[in-house]
């Protein structure tokens, strides 16, 4: 049995909407192994993105324990959480979330500015990440000069530039055509298999989910079934 990368215990998240309290995650228990590729599925409002945001330290839980990469992130202050995110998590969003005024290389270099690397080292590392995602010839292009698939690959390069332990992807193929979606999924699978990244991907697409090693189903803020496309530990 591999070590746990994400451990969730009685995790609760509520939102206030129009004077009503909406419980999005209800005492959720979940454990995810290091180096495994998970797909998170469920109907709209089931709490998938909320869980992803909590695991990535973008939002804070109301109750429960949340240990990611060995850190109980529920106990961290806002600044500590920011530093923790920079060191441990890479994000890939549905809408790519690249900064429009920067080039592909500058976007990938951004998280590296939070590391002690020198300017030339940062540049080199960003170029390596862009070459890895097949965009070595698009480094000086701005996001609007790239296709959707290319933008998402820049986002993946940015997510892996700091060599994080966990990659969190929120509908990474949601805005892409089939061919681009396949390229992005191929990349995520490669990052998992070759670089042993723990990946948690929210998706509505069963075909995309099939590329993961495990599919976790959420329903009304609670854990449903867990399917294993490959036996636990098979990819290791």
């Amino acid at each position: 049995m591999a070590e746990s990368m994400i451990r969730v215990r009685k995790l609760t998240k509520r939102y206030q909407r129009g004077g009503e309290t909406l419980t999005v995650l209800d005492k959720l228990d979940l454990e995810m192994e290091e180096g495994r590729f998970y797909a998170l599925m469920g109907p709209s409002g089931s709490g998938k993105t909320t869980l992803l945001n909590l695991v990535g330290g973008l939002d804070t839980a109301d109750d429960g324990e949340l240990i990611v990469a060995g850190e109980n992130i529920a106990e961290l202050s806002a600044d500590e959480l920011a530093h923790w995110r920079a060191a441990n998590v890479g994000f890939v969003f549905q809408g790519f979330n690249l900064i429009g005024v920067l080039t592909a290389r500058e976007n990938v270099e951004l998280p590296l500015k939070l590391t002690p690397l020198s300017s030339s080292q940062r540049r080199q590392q960003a170029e390596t990440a862009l070459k890895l995602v097949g965009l070595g010839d698009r480094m000086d292009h701005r996001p609007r000069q790239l296709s959707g698939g290319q933008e998402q690959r820049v986002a993946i390069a940015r997510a892996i530039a700091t060599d994080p332990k966990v990659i969190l992807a929120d509908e990474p193929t949601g805005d892409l055509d089939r061919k681009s979606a396949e390229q992005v999924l191929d990349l995520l699978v490669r990052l998992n298999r070759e670089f042993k990244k723990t990946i948690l991907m929210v998706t509505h697409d069963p075909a995309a989910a099939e590329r993961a090693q495990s599919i976790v189903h959420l329903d009304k803020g609670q854990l449903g079934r867990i399917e294993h496309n490959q036996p636990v530990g098979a990819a290791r």
Partner: protein
Amino acid sequence: MFKLVVQNLLSHPIRSLITAVSVAVALFLICLLTSIVTTLQSGLAAASATRLVVMSSISLFVDIPLSYQERIAKVDGIENIVKWQWFGGYYKDQKNFFAQFAVDPERMWAVYPEVKVDEATKQKFLTQRNACIVGWQLAAEFPEWLETGKVPITGALFPHPSGEAWQFDLAGVYRSEAANFDNRTMFFRWDLFEETLKSTGDAPGVGVYVMSVEPGADIERMKAEIEGMFENGPATVRCDTESEFTRQFISMLGDIPMFLGWIGAGVLVAILLGAINAMLMAGREQTHDVGILKALGFTNSAAFGLLIAQSLVLCLFGGALGIGLAAALEAPIALAIGSAFPGFFIADSTYIQAALVSLGVGLAAGAVPAWNALRVNCVEALRAKGA
């Protein structure tokens, strides 16, 4: 991050340019207005408290008799006395207006040691009846005087008996080292003035007498004695120190410092509102980017810094433009408004003050968007629509 700051500003070049130029214009105006006040005040500050000025108690525009000079000179404590008369002429055209005074040449430098001329100029002024001296700023304005050595002045108040312009020979150029004595005035000899008027039967009066006093002299006693001396005379007089006289002269123009201060404050408020508006727009547009930065691990303080830095870069750039423009145009402005504000200059403290104003506007304009960036929740920021 600095690159991101610059790129964000360049992503809306017209808006950034308009904001920077408006800050530049405002800072240029603030430099100009402040310098007018500074120029007036420096004249006041440099005016001597130990030099006395005697004028008519009715008005500066009412002459006092020539005969008073001898009696005033006998007052205990008077060192030297020089008389001044406003000539009110012009050079060729009425638009070429500047001050001209008829003075006692031999006593001029005894009373005003801060007015410097070379020895040849001094000797020519002391010995040649139609000689005149002009300040260096005036000489720069009319370089033909230096070329020809002739200064023809049409007397508006005192027309020449010939009906032509008064003809003066330029003895040389003076340079004042004190702010109370400007470098844009012309002086000519009293004896020429008096004799020319007398030839037509007129008897010239005196505008003011200016006296230097002996060290340690009792100024208050001297003032009282001089005023009392002519209490029952043909023209009563008022005696003040030069600094008090200058203060009253400036007050004749109205409360200029306060008026200019209000204009400056208005300009400042207008530009501040403009800069705040521009930065609020930038802040709203960049909320999504702030969310991205926070997701990548940048702290709330870094998000705050991004917005405040943009505001500072924009306002300091605009400020530098305005200050640079003011510095570049200092001499032409001094020439243009020299007749109204002789000795106009921009003090170093004005440049520093203007730079601090740019800094303050930058901080104030960026404060609200930067605070919003600091406080916004990462998830909410990522949901915001990008620029």
